[in-house]
């Protein structure tokens, strides 16, 4: 039996109470379970997932901590590494999984796949697979909110690598000049595909945080421990308040670690895709780094904290985890039995 999908609107009191902490943990577990399952599908159902899939394991605290501060109709616009966000918004996992499997019941009827989930009805208008470009789209959603005086704000998520793309800089400058209601969340998961961020970022080379880029736009910039959902929540809340007040954008760097490899191995058909080892080990031979960050696994740490603080008991934690497992397993079964689209359907949706 699938668990009910997440609440559509996250609670958003300044201080988190027990229910809210549980909600956060639940969402983090749902994301983790979903991503672990997608990864397992490469082994258990080879060939079912095509193309390139990118997982958000490791990003749970960043995603959930940030979206905790979200109001009902605020837009959420991440990059192609996009599974985690709609899970929190309440998008049915069945349709998400079906999309990743290329099925007709997929969120996008099989047209988008893992990189291009979209659920505009839940204020998740879609993503781009071209690095940095969706930062401009998100900024455009903020323009809509401003022009329509809808009091929406935009949560724009993107990677450390994307912050080297011109679109990032141009967008932040325009958002600052136009005082657009947007929060830019630079998810520094420390890798751009196979490249460690210290090899390509001038701030990093100098030992500075990436949030220093905010200075180029004279907007607030902050770096926060992206493995701690409470820490993320606090910093993002401030940025969201600023956006809501009409004072313009902020840049928040959430620093955490991508726990799995960049994505599945790129193979030429008919070779089936599979999921490789993390680049820290496979490319850099740095198992120590890999293990150190796995020890800071945000889901495990948050679980331990909630147990310690008696927000959860071992039993209630297990219940949350079992429910997530059941929900995701249901999604897999749903997706496996959903039909592939008929070939001729490909000519739909080209023009409005």
């Amino acid at each position, binding site marked *: 039996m699938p668990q009910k999908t997440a609440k559509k609107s996250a609670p958003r009191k300044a201080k988190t109470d027990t229910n809210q902490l549980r909600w956060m943990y639940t969402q983090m577990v749902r994301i983790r379970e979903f991503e672990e399952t997608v990864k397992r599908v490469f082994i258990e159902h080879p060939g079912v997932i095509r193309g390139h899939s990118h997982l958000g394991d490791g990003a749970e605290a960043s995603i959930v901590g940030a979206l905790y501060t979200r109001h009902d109709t605020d*837009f959420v*616009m991440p990059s192609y590494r996009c599974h985690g966000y709609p899970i929190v918004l309440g998008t049915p996992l069945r349709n998400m999984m079906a999309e990743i499997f290329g099925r007709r019941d*997929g*969120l*996008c*009827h*099989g*047209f*988008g796949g893992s990189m*291009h989930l*979209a*659920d*505009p*009805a839940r204020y998740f*208008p*879609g993503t*781009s697979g*071209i690095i940095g*470009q969706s*930062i*401009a*789209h*998100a*900024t*455009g*959603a*903020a*323009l*809509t*909110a*401003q*022009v*329509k005086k809808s009091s929406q704000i935009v949560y724009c998520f993107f990677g450390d690598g994307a912050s080297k793309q*011109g*679109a990032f800089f*141009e*967008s932040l*400058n*325009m958002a600052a*000049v*136009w005082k657009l209601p947007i929060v830019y969340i630079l998810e520094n998961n420390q890798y751009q595909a196979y490249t460690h961020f210290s090899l390509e970022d001038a701030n990093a080379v100098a030992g500075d945080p990436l949030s220093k880029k905010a200075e180029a736009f004279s907007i607030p910039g902050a770096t926060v421990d992206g493995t701690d959902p409470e820490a993320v929540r606090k910093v993002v809340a401030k940025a969201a308040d600023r956006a809501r007040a009409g004072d313009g954008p902020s840049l928040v760097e959430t620093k955490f670690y991508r726990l799995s490899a960049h994505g599945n191995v790129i193979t030429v058909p008919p070779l089936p895709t599979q999921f490789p080892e993390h680049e820290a080990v496979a490319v850099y031979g740095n198992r120590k780094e890999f293990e150190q960050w796995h020890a800071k696994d945000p889901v495990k740490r948050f679980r331990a904290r909630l147990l310690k603080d008696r927000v959860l008991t071992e039993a209630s934690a297990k219940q949350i985890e079992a429910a997530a497992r059941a929900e995701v397993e249901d999604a897999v079964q749903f997706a496996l039995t959903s039909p592939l689209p008929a070939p001729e359907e490909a000519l*739909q*949706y*080209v*023009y*409005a």
Partner: protein
Amino acid sequence: MGKEMMYADAIAAAIIEEMQRDPNVVFYGQNMAMTERDPMLKKFGKERVRIAPISETAEIGIGIGAAMTGLRPIVELWMSEFMLVAFDQVINEAPRLRYMSGGQVSVPLVLKAGYGFCAGWAGQHSNCIYHTMMGIPGLKVVVPSTPADAKGLMVAAIRDDNPVVYLHSYMLTLEKGEVPEGEYVVPLGVADIKRNGTDVTIVAIGWMVKKALAAAERLAEEGISAGVVDPRTLAPLDVATIVDSVKKTGRVVLVDQAPRHSSAAAVIAGEIAEHAVGCVNALRMVTALDAPIPYSEPLENYVVPHEDKIVEAVKAVMAHDAVAA
């Protein structure tokens, strides 16, 4: 019932009328609406009319995001080449997002830019790059050749729920012509026969329509009846109208301001080859020569197609007997 108007004014009129009609239409770009005295700013307010920095990727990308979420932005880009710094947004974002979402979102966006300014602006500001945007599924491309078309096509572009690149010819900016008054819409995807002719079909685009009409006039004096077909939109391309005309005359000259292999003419010639090869006796393309646009006037004039070359090409195809239809 029409009103004499300049091409540039016809475009502006369309934008103003549509902004009056639909509060979701917003308009921004560089070096516009600089002061509060700006007439557009006065009319529509600073939320809907804005000045942007030299950031085409953000400007266009913001237009896309705004279009995805409920606005209908018109982005003023000035010269079409300036889109190239943001070309992913133009051909790999705007036209893809609807499809990738399985039809859930649409991107009603107009990218307005002038093209092909032959006035000594040299290698980077004078080009015709419409071929790069042709045939991109999901993207429409408009190239008006008269003030009336300029107005009617802009209205259609703004109302279209797809991304539309609206390319006006800088060379026609001051061109005058009759424009129907009141609401006037020219549908996207319908070619216009700008002149009837029985001996040869000239297919011409944008500024070249004017040159083709002048050439046809001269040819008429020599007893040659040349028709001129203006596709008006390169995407969708009205292949049927072009092929119909070609089938009747059996001879075709395609005129395009772009270099041959980056011309729309070559693509249209390809369609003619597929659909009418048995009916065509001769086909010639008159395009820019294989060179960037040079600065100095005699060089520029040499590279860009002109009337004499159209006349010559028509005479060359006239040397071939028409194939019986």
